[in-house]
Structure formats: structure tokens, C-alpha cells
């Protein structure tokens, strides 16, 4: 069973009365355990597509199944619950909560979203801190961390709930080359270690090189894919 299945997926925004087609009848399939990149220039529809897969937005047309759930019809609360249970997010600007320490940021989804018991939270946070290699920074606040360290915290936060799928929107855009490489390597090793599927959007060639499967978007359409994958153009 595919993890993500999109059929003729479209998204049209109404911008000041003018309809703007961000995604146009896109169809694709992503299997569990994949390490996938959506690439393309600015305005090509990468972020919109990631938002649709991340159940942050609803398609205008077409069908989208994520983790065996038809997410096109989910309401606001159901969407939030679905994201909390099945998905993890890594943002371009890290988006850590400034008043919480690294460990508390990682713990946040377990505490405020899933309501896990304290002992389980502590154990999972400890494991993730070690996995992303920042155990010694557990009690540092975001403003005391470098960009790379912040993104490691963000990756740990995305993984702490054992999601089936992690979505990363331009995860290396604010990092230098060396750090970007380390973060991508980290995500790939996390994929290998936890079996989590990673989907990220990027126009960074360094990231594309790491991806196992790349979808190229242009003007909201899938232009090409590489290497061979179960992709079906609309």
C-alpha cells in the first residue's frame, strides 16, 4: 500500500479575485520509506504540494490519500489530529518555540499534541537527542543554538512522535553548505534508522543529490521524475 497517493490533484487560490492555479492535476505515488524531493523554481508549486500532503491545506480538485486516509475531506480538528498522529514537520526557519529548551521543544508534540505519559516522553526525548547528536545541548534555548543545531532539534521534534511521514519545506535554505550536508545526512540516517518516509521541497542541488526520488515541478505541473519511480503523470 502506498503511503501517499495523489490523483489529478489541483489547488487554485483566489488572489484578489484572480484565480491562481498553484498545482495543476498532479498525480503521483510515494511508497513507505522513501526519501523524496520536490524540486523546482520559486512559484512552481512545491510548497503548496507539501502543504496539501501535510494536510495543512485542502485541494480544490482531485483525490489525495495519506497514510491510508482520504485527507481531502478532513475538517479542521480532524486535520490537526491527523497531523499530530501521523506526520512530522521540519521548517525552513526551524520554528522552534523560543521559551522552551531543546529537550522541551522535542518533547512538545508528545506533551501538547499526543498527551503521552511523562516517563515515555523523557525516554523518547533522550533517544532522539542522542540520535540527532545534540544530547549535550538538551537544556539550551533556541537562541543559544547555531542554525545547524536548531535544525537538528527540529528534525528530532518531527521524529519524536514516530510519524509515518516527515515533511520538510526547504530544510537547508538557511544553512551553510557544510551544515546543510550534515542535516541532509542526518535526515537520511533517521530514515534508515526509524523507517520514516521523508518528503522535502527544495531548489538546492545539494539536497537533490541526496534524494532517492526527485519530482520536478514547473508551473504547478510535474515536469519529470528521476530516477525510475512509481510516478504517473496526469
Amino acid at each position, binding site marked *: 500500500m502506498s503511503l501517499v497517493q495523489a490523483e489529478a490533484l489541483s489547488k487554485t487560490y483566489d488572489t484578489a479575485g484572480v484565480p491562481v492555479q498553484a498545482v495543476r492535476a498532479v498525480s503521483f505515488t510515494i511508497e513507505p520509506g522513501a526519501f523524496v524531493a520536490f524540486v523546482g523554481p520559486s512559484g512552481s508549486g512545491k510548497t503548496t504540494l507539501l502543504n496539501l500532503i501535510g494536510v495543512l491545506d485542502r485541494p480544490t480538485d482531485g483525490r489525495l490519500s495519506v497514510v491510508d486516509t482520504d485527507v481531502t475531506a478532513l475538517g479542521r480538528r480532524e486535520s490537526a*489530529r*491527523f497531523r499530530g498522529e501521523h506526520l512530522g*514537520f521540519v521548517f525552513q526557519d526551524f520554528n522552534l518555540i523560543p*521559551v522552551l529548551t531543546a529537550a522541551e521543544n522535542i518533547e512538545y508534540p508528545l*506533551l*501538547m499534541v499526543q498527551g503521552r505519559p511523562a516517563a515515555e516522553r523523557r525516554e523518547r526525548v533522550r533517544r532522539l537527542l542522542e540520535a540527532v547528536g545534540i544530547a549535550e545541548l538538551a537544556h539550551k534555548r533556541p537562541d543559544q543554538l547555531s542554525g545547524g543545531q536548531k535544525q537538528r532539534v527540529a528534525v528530532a521534534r518531527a521524529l519524536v512522535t514516530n510519524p509515518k511521514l516527515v515533511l520538510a519545506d526547504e530544510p537547508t535554505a538557511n544553512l551553510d553548505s557544510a551544515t546543510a550536508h550534515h542535516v541532509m545526512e542526518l535526515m537520511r540516517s533517521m530514515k534508515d534508522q526509524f523507517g520514516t518516509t521523508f518528503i522535502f521541497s527544495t531548489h538546492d542541488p545539494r539536497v537533490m543529490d541526496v534524494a532517492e526520488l526527485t519530482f520536478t515541478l514547473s508551473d504547478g505541473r510535474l515536469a519529470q521524475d528521476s530516477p525510475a519511480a512509481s510516478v504517473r503523470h496526469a
Partner: protein
Amino acid sequence: MLDIFRIAARNLWRYQRRTLLTTLLISLGILAVLLFVGVAGSFKNLMIGQITDSMLGHLQVHRRGYVASIDNLPLNLNLTPQQAQQVEAALKDIPEVEAWSPRLKLGALFSNFTESTNIRLVGVDPEAEARTVPLLPGRVLEATKQGPLLTPGHILIPELLARGMKINVGDTVVLVATNQDGSVNGQTFVVGGILESATGPGGRDGYLHIADARTLLRMPQANVSEIAVRLRSLGGLRPAYSALSAALGALLDAQGKPVFEVHTWEGLSPFSSLARMIDLMNVFIQVMLIGIVLISIMNVMMMAVFERVREIGTIAAIGTQPVRILGLFVAEGLLLGLLGTAVGTVISLAALWGLNLAKVTFAFGMADKLVLAPTIAAGDVLFIGALAVATAVVASLQPALHASRMDPIQALHHV
């Protein structure tokens, strides 16, 4: 739940100056309200005490129609001994009642053999009167001797009358009164004491023994004009009034109308309007407190929401339910309210304590050097604190709802 408060507390700490200013504003509001309630409440209670404990008593029972004609001191509307006994029987069954005093009121011509004037007199049983209006003995400025308030053959005259007619303690005076049948009788009395005037109805009346009053009026039986009642506490006023009204209301005359009328001190003294005004001002200043807390919390929480839009977008995106986001911001408002209330309450109690130490004095009517001892009931402190905290929660609801309804995508891309 505790974790929500922990995060809320850290968010407040993030903006220390703003938190401090809002806390101070709420504290000032609490200080203003508690000081006003404490000082105005104590002033009101002191004044009520002066009026009820000097002359009125807490309740009074009359024959129906007496109070409407009280300026004439109508002798034909006195209570008969049987009616007085019925009232006393009813009073014995009311647990809030501490003491009562039957009084016979009359108007008379007062003379010191060289000049004369009119005087209003109250005939009392000295012991019962002292139990019912315990501040009365303290109003005696000069007296022939230490001892009972009054002895037969003596009269207590008001200070202004004594000064005006140059009468001293021990002087002999004449009282001439007209009785119910219209016949006139005169009798000499020795001035047993000079009585300080008090503010309110009856504050400038003279006093004589009730037996002397009956003799002067040639009254064949022990009639009384009114029965003044003292309660164990002012808090028992309503239940005692209801119980007494119910007991006496059942006693009807030949026309089927009630024989008696019962009045609280409020119905007999114009000061009750002032007391009600103080109560109204209490409510008004509490409304102002609500306004202060509402505006300050709403302002600070709206700023907090607008400054943290991307943060709200992040927690919404990772799956935080809208109700939890709402809870986070309401918790911040609640904590601000609690902090401001706690600080304000501590400062207010310290200020009230300081006022008590300073022993501020003031004058009320003829009484001066009354010491203001402001106190505040624990119930009032709790109520005002709860009011401020509840207002803080209500004020944070609108910004919190706004935060909880944000679209995650728009919030994440907010600049």
C-alpha cells in the same frame, strides 16, 4: 494542565517589562478597590454604629401610624401594656435579638424659672436603654455622680439647650406637659447630666426615667411609644426584621388591620441614603476595576498573539488542537490576573494595616475625633480577587480565540 501553565509562565517571562507593567496596573486597580471598600465600609459601619448604638437601636416597633406622625409625638398612638407585652413575647422568640428598651416619648415645655423653651423627651428604663443603645451613657458629658444613667427625679438635657439657657448639672428645672386628655401638669426635675448631641433623629432629645414620664403625663397605665431593639449583630437585621414583622403582622385590630409597624434603622434615619450611596460607589469602583483589568489584559494578550503568529502557526501545524492553543493564551491571561491580584492584595492589606497604625480621626456630625479603623472582610478580599481574575480570563478569551482560529499556513508565512 500544569505544563500549559509552565509554558504560559515562560511566555510571560519572555516579555518581562510588559508583564511587570500589566501586573502593576492590575495591582493598582486592586489597591484602589480594596482601600476604598475597606475605608468606606469602615466609615459606613462606624456611622451606622453611631446612629444605632447612640439612640435608634437596630429595629423599632410602634403602633401603626405612629412613625407617620412622629413629629407630633402623638400620645394617642402609644402601645398599651398588653400590646407592649405582645411585642416583648415576639422578641423573646427571635434569636438575633440581644436587648430591647420600651420608651415613652413626649414633648414638654422646659423652664429654668427665668426662660422657657420646648423640649422633646424620651422616658426610658435606664438599664434596658443602656443595653439597647450602649453608646448613650458615653454621650453624658457631665453628670452629678458616677452610676446609673438616670435615676427618678433627674433629667438628662441636650448640650445645646444647656449652653443656650446656661443650665448646669444639679440645677432644678421645670417640665410642663400636656397629657392625652388635654390637661396640663408640671413637675420639677434636677439636671442629672448634660448629653452630647448626636447626628440623626432623636439626637437632641432629653432623657428622663420612664416612671417620671408617666407621672408627668398622669398616665394611668404603663403605655409606651416605641420599643427599640438591639440585635447581636447588624448581619441579623434582615432575618430579625422578617421574623418580627411576621410575628406582629398576624396581630390585627378590630378593622382587620395590623396593630404594629416594624422599622429597621434604615427606615428611620436619613443616613441610610448615604450608606446606600457608599454601597453604590463600591459597585462603581468594582466596575472600574473590571474595566482596568479588561483593557490591560486584552491589550497585552492581543500584542502577544500578534507577535507570535508564526509560533502559533508552528504549533498548529504540528497538530496542536485549537482548544489547546486557546488554553495556552487563556492561561497567560489567568496567570497575569493572578499575579496582579496577589501583588495588589498584599499591598492593599499592608496599606490598610498602615492606616490602622496611623489612627486617622475624623468628625461626623457633632461627634469628632472618631478613629477610622479600616478593615476588610476576607469574603470581600476573595470576591474582589475572584472578580479581577475572572475578568482577566474573560479579557484573554478574544485574543486566545483569535490565536486558536488561525490558519496554520497563513500564520507560518506571517512576516
